[in-house]
């Protein structure tokens, strides 16, 4: 399998430093470092122009007939009830916080799992293994902590 992020294959991102410095050493004329990002700038400008143009023409050309029903807040088709500024229990924030902790853990574990074989080939297998184990052990201690503190109980 050919990996897209290996040098020489183009890759996701231009590699400004190493590739360019080498090119420079070989005497190839380099213009601005930011040149590869020019298409992105063009895209941004186009997007901006499109947004403004569409909104402008819709406002100028489109008919505008406001009725009470159109002005009402839409909530899945049923009549709205209650105050939109309801207060939420702090428990939701706690759950969100705990979710992020373990979400980030999985973010780290996936690439680690995918790369472990390669790392083993480089002689870093056990290092990577123990590194991840100590990371997970730290998080496990955190889990034990929130569990014992009662943060996992809803009531």
């Amino acid at each position, binding site marked *: 399998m050919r990996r897209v992020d290996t040098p020489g294959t183009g890759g996701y991102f231009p*590699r*400004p*430093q*190493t590739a*360019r*410095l080498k090119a*420079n050493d070989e005497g190839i004329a*380099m*213009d*601005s*470092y*930011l040149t590869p990002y020019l298409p992105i700038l063009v895209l941004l400008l186009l997007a901006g122009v499109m947004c403004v143009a569409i909104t402008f023409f819709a406002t100028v050309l489109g008919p505008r007939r406001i009725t009470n029903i159109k002005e009402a807040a839409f909530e899945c088709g049923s009549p709205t009830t209650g105050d939109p500024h309801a207060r939420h229990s702090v428990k939701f924030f706690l759950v969100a916080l705990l979710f992020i902790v373990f979400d980030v853990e999985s973010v780290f574990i996936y690439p680690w799992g995918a790369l472990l074989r390669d790392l083993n080939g*480089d*002689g*870093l297998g056990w*290092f990577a293994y123990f590194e991840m184990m100590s990371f997970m052990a*730290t998080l496990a*201690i*955190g889990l*034990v*902590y929130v569990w*014992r*503190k*009662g943060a996992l109980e809803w009531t």
Partner: protein
Amino acid sequence: MTFNANDLLGVLPAIILSIGALLLLMSEVFLSTTRAAAQAPASPGERVAQTATAPEISSTQPDRRYQAWLAAGVAALGLWAALSQLGDPAISLFNGAAMSDGFGRVVAATVCGALLISCFVAFGYLEWLRATRGEFYALTLFSAAGMCLLAQATDLIVIFVSLEVMSLALYALCAYLRRGKRPAEAAFKYFILGSFASAIFLYGAALGFGATGSTRLADIAAGVRLAATGGGPGGSAGLLFASVALLTAGFAFKVAAVPFHMWVPDVYDGAPAPVTGFMAAGVKAAAFAVLVRILVSGFGDPSSSIGPHGWQQIIVWLAALTMFFGNLLAVPQRSVKRMLAYSSIAHAGYLLVAVAAMGNAPSRPDATQGLLFYLASYGATVIGAFGVVALIERKFALAGTGDDLSSWAGLSERHPALAAAMSLFMLSLAGVPPTAGFMAKLTVFRSAIEAGLAPLAIFGVLTSVAGLYYYLRVVVYVYMVPEGRADSVPGGRVLSASIALASCALIVLWMGIMPGSFSAMIQSASGSFGR
């Protein structure tokens, strides 16, 4: 790429502190059987009522007093680890991501020492508020671990991670006594502005990466050299200059330099006094260490316009503004905590003078030595000063007054030792001769003159003379203004605070009277650092 298990020894202080923090967290949950018993300190009114009626620890709460000693033990272990490696040669760790050199070790020792003394200060304070929890000490230990790593990091990613480890723990610590508006305000302001500063730092790091293709400071230095000779990709010189300016701005926030100082008074005021002391000492040490490392190791190439002569101008102006406004704004403060907050801004200015002096290679060793000496002496002094404030704060809660200067009137009659200690710390902050503050200012200003920054040094001396006014005003209130009320610091559990204050006072005097013995210790540090 290889991994050397010995590299872990290089970051030993941080490892010790992290393991200690995890131990404390576990001890907290497995000891506490009465989980539901409101894990928060009571409101001030209730606290006063409780202390008045039931001085003993109530039976529903487990005895957590060992936690302070455990934390202090871990801090002492970290201090030992940092000091035992002090004379070793500098080694690069983890393929250049971190560095174990004398500079980092001295800063780590300063941080661990500050933590150790802060544990003693916090013990009595928290016990009195019935707020002793493992989380407090665990968070301080985590934050100290971040500080130690920050002083050793030589990779922008590692710097960012350590910065967040340090800051996130401190945000939580600011709101530790969470009832009431002031702690919430302190933590919220610190968190919002701190995240903003982190974002600025990250933007600077991204630009540096964009210009050089690496986050290692050594590679950035190579990129700076290349840009100086006209090589490198076009426009990279401009990118690098923007990068160094943004990185400096990010850390100027952390060290509380004007114009990034707005958060300081409210945060220092709202946070518990022991936390404020630790924050003032530890964050300053770590943030200055990493700022210097970025500027000197990363952007220190003398032949480049981005190098020293580029950033030296930024730092000189930051230093001048910080010294001027820090001292000026401290003058009208009547709250001692806010006065100390503005004084902390002013001291950031004096420290920035040392950083500016590092812009010139010949004066770099002296400036490094001055910076380290200043950080250690300021740490000891400010923790002592906030330790006294912590003791006085107990009285405020009983008397119901703010920490106005009038609360300090007549302190010398009731507590002569406390009054003497506070006066000593004030004199040291002001920079009066027999104290550490004088020697620190002397070395810093001398290195600035060596570096050809005589106007900045003169300006610094003038502003510190202006600073005498508000420091000595506290001494005047303590000794010369007769007391209004005859209420004293509530008794009991002041032993730990006395130990802390006595050790701070001893360090301040020792560094002031025999600076040579301490300078010899940091000599190796300054020699090994920088090119």
